[in-house]
């Protein structure tokens, strides 16, 4: 019998959609009991959102003033303690989960399965290796706690409509003070979130400048899409790092992905493989992006983009 604990990702008030995707992954294990753990200062509001996810049995809330920011060294001992009695501990393969879960695994003295993309059985999982150029199927020993991160792009959000019980818990463990939060800065663009948007428009180095990249923002706004970028565009300083898509950036799975002036390095393709439809617009007809594109257009983006925007609004 599998008892699965999912560590909720949240910002203190809102539950991140990655948590719901972890529930979908956990529910692939037949007959699993799924609980969600909210570590917060006051987790009531977040717990109420988690309780609505269909398939969740119980929401555990561990309130502690130390949980004001998601510092892995502070959260990990609590997760390790509260995971007693669970056969599986899952977190999302976002920067939150990637930071936290290996620390939890080490405290429990077990290995970790990174980036679960498919569930073959209670202890058997598929995960990408070599930037997604190979898929590894691994089996965790039946007697070991399965600590894992879930590749959120591989799973849909679970349905709403559940009504799980919320229970307050206390993790009685000493917490370190050696790691202190200073600040966080990010773009609050008002645009859809890159990781959950159903449409994404992304630009590459061919945009030429931050100014040139405005063409991408303009098209994205016209389409109600999120904006992404290749590593080259981020490195060149056209856009901030949180827009990067790829092996070391964000892994996305939108309905529609439009890559503009992106050549399609292996590391970029890793991030977009799960997009339902890929459109590529590039001046170079030999660019590798066309091998993966469902629809390709060879052309100069500086003439194509204004034209495309015009035809879409017409």
């Amino acid at each position, binding site marked *: 019998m599998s008892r699965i604990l999912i560590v909720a990702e949240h910002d203190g008030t809102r539950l991140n959609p990655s948590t719901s995707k972890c529930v979908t992954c956990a529910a692939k294990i037949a007959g699993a009991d799924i609980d969600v753990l909210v570590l917060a200062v006051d987790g009531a509001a977040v717990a109420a959102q988690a309780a609505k996810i269909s398939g969740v049995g119980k929401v555990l809330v561990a309130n502690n003033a130390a949980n004001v920011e998601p510092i*892995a*060294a502070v959260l*990990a001992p609590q997760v390790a303690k509260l995971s007693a009695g669970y056969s599986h501990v899952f977190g999302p393969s976002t*920067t*939150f989960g*990637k*930071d*936290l879960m*290996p*620390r*939890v*695994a*080490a405290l429990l003295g077990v*290995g*970790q399965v*990174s*980036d679960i993309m498919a569930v*073959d059985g209670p202890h*058997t999982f598929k995960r*990408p*290796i*070599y*930037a997604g150029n*190979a*898929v*590894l*199927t*691994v*089996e*965790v020993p039946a007697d*070991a706690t399965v600590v894992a991160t879930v590749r959120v792009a591989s799973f849909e959000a679970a349905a709403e409509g559940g009504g799980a019980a919320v229970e307050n818990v206390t993790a009685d463990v000493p917490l*370190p003070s*050696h*790691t*202190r*939060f*200073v*600040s*966080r*800065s*990010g773009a609050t663009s008002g645009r859809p979130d890159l990781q959950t948007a159903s449409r994404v428009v992304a630009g590459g180095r061919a945009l030429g400048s931050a100014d040139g990249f405005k063409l991408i923002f303009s098209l994205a706004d016209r*389409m109600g899409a999120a904006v992404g970028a290749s*590593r080259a565009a*981020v490195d060149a300083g056209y856009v901030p*790092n*949180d827009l990067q898509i790829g*092996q070391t950036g964000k892994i996305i799975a939108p*309905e*529609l992905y439009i890559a503009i002036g992106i050549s399609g390095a*292996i590391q970029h393709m890793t991030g977009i*493989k799960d997009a339902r*439809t*890929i459109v590529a617009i590039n001046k170079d007809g030999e660019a590798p992006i*066309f091998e993966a594109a*469902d*629809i*390709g*257009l060879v052309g100069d983006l500086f003439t*194509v983009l204004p034209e495309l925007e015009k035809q*879409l609004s017409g």
Partner: protein
Amino acid sequence: MRRIMVGVKRVVDYNVRVRVKSDNTGVMTDGVKMSINPFDEIALEEALRIKEKGLADEVVAVGIGPGDAQQQLRTALAMGADRAILVQTDAVVPPLSVAKIFRQLIDKEQPFLVLLGKQAIDDDNGQAPQMLAALWDRPQAVSCSKVEITDGKATVTREVDAGLEVLELDLPAVMSVDLRLNEPRYVKLPDIMKAKKKPLDTMSLADFGVPETAPFKVVRVDPPPQRSKGVMVKDVAELVDALKKKGLV
């Protein structure tokens, strides 16, 4: 001695397009170009820059892998590491064992900072730094894009989904580095000659008493699912038509 320890993993070069073996037991690595894991190269570069600022006295590069991993450690020495340690094994050492090996080396070397790549580009696990920090009970900063060291503390900027996060850490600590932290230097020929004389100690995995085999059984390795061949359109009007047909606009 103010010491920095850096992890240097030998991996298939990032430009190689890996192929899955026909018997589905792994990927083909015979005769393939091998390099330092790119993230480890950035970790090493950062360690060297910290030393060059006068904030450290010695940079020790540590590799875990086959005898041939000496090549990557020699490159690390040519880049500027002062000495290297190879923990020799032909086994694929899982991240928790890597962390346990580093933990034991920390007792011996007493570094104030351990710099590691945020992930190795072969197994893409991204676990060893966090696991080491847990076993050592010290701070971790994952995906660093900026590191500043002052008076027993470090201020680090991390790349997170929301943007950038700044943490203050008491030292000693473990940091895993991201791509934008720095651009590693090129190795010059005289440095390669000099590196041949630098100490490279070899230890055996057996010296560490950690499990040699991965905790997980490899069931099989498959190529990724292929996308079906797409269509090329000749102009914007055709593109918009194609998108409309799919109900996407």
